[in-house]
């Protein structure tokens, strides 16, 4: 079992679910983005989803767009991603997955990217605009290096596509809670529960839910049926508004949602 799957299993065996936190590299500055990632890990985030700023982030809502655009304007380079992974994994125990749109990886060289990521201590990639159908090169590179590869599953995905996502993903499948882009929402769509159930039917051991989660209550609700809850925009907003201390505080609050009772666990699996 690989890095993040091991973490998810450990949380499950402890009767709890995992908290996965997204933060972009280079926002508000490179050093602060490292401190923020380490800070949320120390406040109870189990897996860090580290966003690689990209010029055309079609899956991202306004909060994350604003942060990643600023990082780019401040001079973010792809080499910073590996440095960030190296520094974060040196300072905390959390697994670090990079969330990256596909073109930067291709331009860097898929094999070279995989080698440099594993050298830096990274766990793998979440690829929001790469579907397994187009992913042969990455599937080969991750198989060679042992990196995790997280593909997305959507409420609109057919059963065949869910089976493909389960089969090709390693670590977990990223279940998109709702049809849409990143950004906090007041209600997590009931579609998420049904999607995770369909992913289980397709054989998924680990399914984590993302998009729209921003409160401890939502984390708790999602972890009734999923292995991990992914929080992004809410953390980025806290970082933008209140800096490193504020994002750590929010992470600690969110982490209170990860404790499940035995009863919940039994009912959900």
């Amino acid at each position, binding site marked *: 079992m690989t890095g993040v799957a091991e973490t998810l299993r450990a949380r499950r065996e402890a009767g709890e679910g995992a908290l996965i936190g997204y933060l972009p590299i280079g926002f508000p500055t490179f050093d602060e983005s490292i401190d923020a990632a380490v800070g949320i890990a120390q406040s109870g985030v189990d897996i860090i989803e580290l966003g690689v700023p990209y010029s055309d982030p079609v899956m991202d809502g306004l909060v994350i767009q604003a942060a990643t655009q600023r990082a780019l304007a401040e001079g973010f380079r792809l080499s910073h991603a590996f440095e960030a992974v190296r520094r974060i994994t040196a300072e905390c125990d959390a697994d670090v997955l990079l969330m990256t749109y596909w073109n*930067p990886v291709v331009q860097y060289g898929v094999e070279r990217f995989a080698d440099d990521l594993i050298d830096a201590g990274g766990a793998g990639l979440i690829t929001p605009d790469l579907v397994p159908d187009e992913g042969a090169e990455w599937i080969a590179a991750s198989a060679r290096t042992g990196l995790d590869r997280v593909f997305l*599953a959507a409420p609109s995905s*057919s059963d065949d596509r869910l089976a493909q996502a389960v089969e090709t993903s390693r670590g977990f499948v990223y279940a998109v809670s709702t049809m849409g882009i990143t950004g906090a929402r007041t209600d997590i769509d009931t579609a998420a529960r049904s999607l995770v159930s369909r992913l289980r039917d397709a054989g998924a051991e680990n399914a984590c839910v993302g998009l729209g989660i921003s409160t401890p209550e939502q984390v708790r609700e999602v972890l009734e049926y999923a292995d991990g809850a992914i929080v992004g925009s809410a953390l980025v907003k806290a970082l933008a508004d209140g800096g490193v201390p504020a994002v750590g505080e929010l992470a600690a609050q969110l982490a209170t949602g990860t404790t499940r009772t035995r009863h919940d666990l039994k009912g959900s699996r």
Partner: protein
Amino acid sequence: MTLKNSTGPYFGDFGGRYVPESLIATLDDLTREWEDAKADPAFHRELDALLRDYVGRPTAITEVPRFAEHAGGARIILKREDLTHTGSHKINNVLGQALLTKRVGKTRVIAETGAGQHGVATATAAALFGLDCVIYMGEVDTERQALNVARMRLLGAEVIPVTTGSRTLKDAINEAMRDWVTNVGTTNYIFGTVAGPHPFPSMVRDLQKVIGEEARDQVISLTGRLPDAVTACVGGGSNAMGIFHAFLDDADVALYGFEAAGEGVDTPRHAATITKGRPGMLHGARSFLLQDDDGQTTESHSISAGLDYPGVGPEHAWLASIERARYRPVTDAAAMEALRLLSRTEGIIPAIESAHALAGTIELGRELGPDAVVLVSLSGRGDKDMETAGTYFNLIDEGAEQS
């Protein structure tokens, strides 16, 4: 070898679907619906009737001898897409996709627009079919194409200025894709060019190929033979694919796409994607694009909003890679000079986009000599560009009231 029958998702090494999983089901549906529609005589009857009675097809071809004197004396024939309803070739594609929207039972359409021509065409079709319509347009483009913004609003569309990124066409597409991911249940994305994820490159090509099919027959009727060369401007590349397609398997017909070189391809301010870019993924397809070493899309520049795009359709990337078509850069200055020349020699004011094709054709005509026949896609009319041209040529009297 037949080049005409390629249907995607791949054109050689180009094309594909580099999009979020959330869009795959819809793209699959759209692909299936489009295949069904193409095979349905009733769909074609309805579309053909609209193209005839509403758009004004077939459009004329016009030989332009006074202009041709400046192009080495070659016979130059314009395919007059500028004479269509709404003033550019964009309407051909939009009516097909609007009919498809009705067919799939959706009630809302969205579109991106650069120069505003695709937005106007989409707003027009939405008015005609009673669909809700939202147009995403880069804020920079809303300023330089204010007249088209007014046209879209008059037609009942909501125009949303996009303020992220470079605030031009590229960012308008990003924003339209975000809208689509979110509202895919009710909404069809009427994509304006032969780029984007499958099935858009082949679907838009199929809806635009009428340009070349008509023109091929018309040129043969007029001259008794095939042209030596067919030329068009290339931004995303829909008018170019539209006129190229009928000639793809005519090996003796050279195909030339003219890209926007802005202030020059050796400056950072251009939009010459095939000339200066390299392969990568943007807006759902693998094609050529303008990007930095890290794969970040770089900002393009052209005086023409419709060509100001750092990507290009994957079928063009393929035609360039197999050397079936050639792509050359044309500067802002050369395009504006050609715009003025056609206006003064023939009484036809072209769109600045189309003026790139004219400028490239002047050079090409000189190379080919007086025996050559060159067919040019005059993709749109210049009414929308009067403010830009007026400023460029200093045609507006000082102190005059401007809207």
